[in-house]
């Protein structure tokens, strides 16, 4: 009983709503607006069924009509680079800084809006010194390093400096296994080895 009533009211609703929005489902042909406009002009959509957004779109159309763009399937010929790379003059300085000093003593904190990193301070100081004095790049680099040292930022060079053969202490060449074998073989000369091993252990620790 209730069911038949419901279906009756549903039918009435269908009559009210079913005629609404006869549409065209061709999303690749024209824009949403052009299709609705043409349907209204031809009388398929009655003026009473005009969509809510129609007048708003007419008053404030978008910058670009939302037409469907076909994707190019063929391998495209080399077209010119549409999006330029962003480089600044200070990037030379930044590159040299990162090469020599690594990231620097203080870690980046991108959550702070006005955060100035070590590299940025270096670059600022570099540009400042460049405007004052007319030194060349390498000297200016050193000067900036010294200036930052004065401010209290210690810049440690990245990577070990290249080591020459002569400067190396010959004692460091000794391996502990060899020393142990020596010690065991020369068990009688224990005094000298006792003196010797603390000395070598110290030097090998450094």
């Amino acid at each position, binding site marked *: 009983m209730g069911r038949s009533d419901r279906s009756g009211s549903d039918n009435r609703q269908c009559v009210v*709503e079913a005629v609404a*929005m006869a549409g065209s489902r061709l999303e690749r042909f024209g824009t949403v607006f052009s299709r609705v406009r043409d349907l209204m002009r031809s009388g398929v959509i009655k003026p009473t069924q005009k969509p809510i*957004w129609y007048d708003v*779109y007419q008053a*404030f159309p978008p*910058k670009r009509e939302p037409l469907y763009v076909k994707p190019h399937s063929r391998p495209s010929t080399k077209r010119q680079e549409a*999006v330029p790379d962003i480089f600044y003059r200070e990037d030379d300085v930044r590159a040299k800084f990162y090469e020599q000093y690594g990231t620097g003593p203080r870690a980046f904190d991108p959550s702070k809006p006005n955060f100035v990193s070590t590299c940025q301070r270096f670059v600022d100081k570099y540009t400042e010194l460049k405007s004052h004095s007319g030194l060349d790049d390498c000297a200016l680099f050193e000067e900036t390093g010294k200036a930052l040292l004065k401010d209290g930022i210690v810049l440690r060079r990245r990577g070990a400096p290249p080591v020459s053969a002569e400067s190396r202490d010959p004692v460091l060449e000794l391996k502990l296994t060899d020393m142990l074998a020596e010690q065991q073989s020369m068990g009688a000369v224990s005094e000298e080895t006792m003196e010797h091993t603390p000395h070598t252990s110290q030097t090998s620790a450094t």
Partner: protein
Amino acid sequence: MAARAMTRGILGLRHSRAVTFGYSCGGSHYATAASIKPPPPQNEDVSDKIMKLPLEKPDFFRVSELFSLKDLFDARVHLGHKKGCRHRLMEPYLYGCRLDQDIIDLDQTVEHFQQALNFTAHVAYRGGIILFVTRRRQFGHLVETTAKDCGEYAHTRYWQGGLLTNAPIQYGPGVRLPDLIVFLSTLNNVFQPHVGIRDAAKMNIPTVGVVDSNCNPSLVTYPVPGNDDTPAAIELYCRLFKMTINRAKDKRRQMELLHSLSAPSTPS
């Protein structure tokens, strides 16, 4: 399954409102103010004035005051994806490429966003249904709460094929479809264009969408080039949409009160 029941419940609520529209507002053209009870009879010219007046001003709801370029920058809206992920059609919206990462042009974003918010405000003013869609699970809850706070709808779950195109069968006859769909991210979980964009175009529903540098903006009616991955950016978008819609609805109530007060003076 639960999602389907939820959306059915949501669209079912609208369904009951649609019923009252069919019977009571015989004379007026468009779906007017959202209320369960039939709206009080108004003069034709009063309702016309309410509808036409906002369209005459370029920024009736003053959406341009809601955000600035600095706000967009602080929310990291300008950060796009890497150069390899770039979509060909997004190239006009990009400012440049910094160390292989695309930077979106915020000047263009400001203009597009203002247009999009303006459109949303006008649709909300006229009592349109707005559906928020995103398939980013990270922001699903945020988008749902945003929709709830402004009295609109959200669909952040799996998009069934016939949701818009087969709605009368899936949700019952006489269901009212959304008048605007807002995409907080136009991609789905496998980095392909969301089906909803194509379906909305098929059903002649305008869309507003945040398009990142790897998205296809061609079918979106009012694209907003911007970052769709950072939580800060998405929170900004949600906040701004919520504020616009609430502002538009408040304005509508205000206009109706204003004109219904002056209505008795005009002859019916």
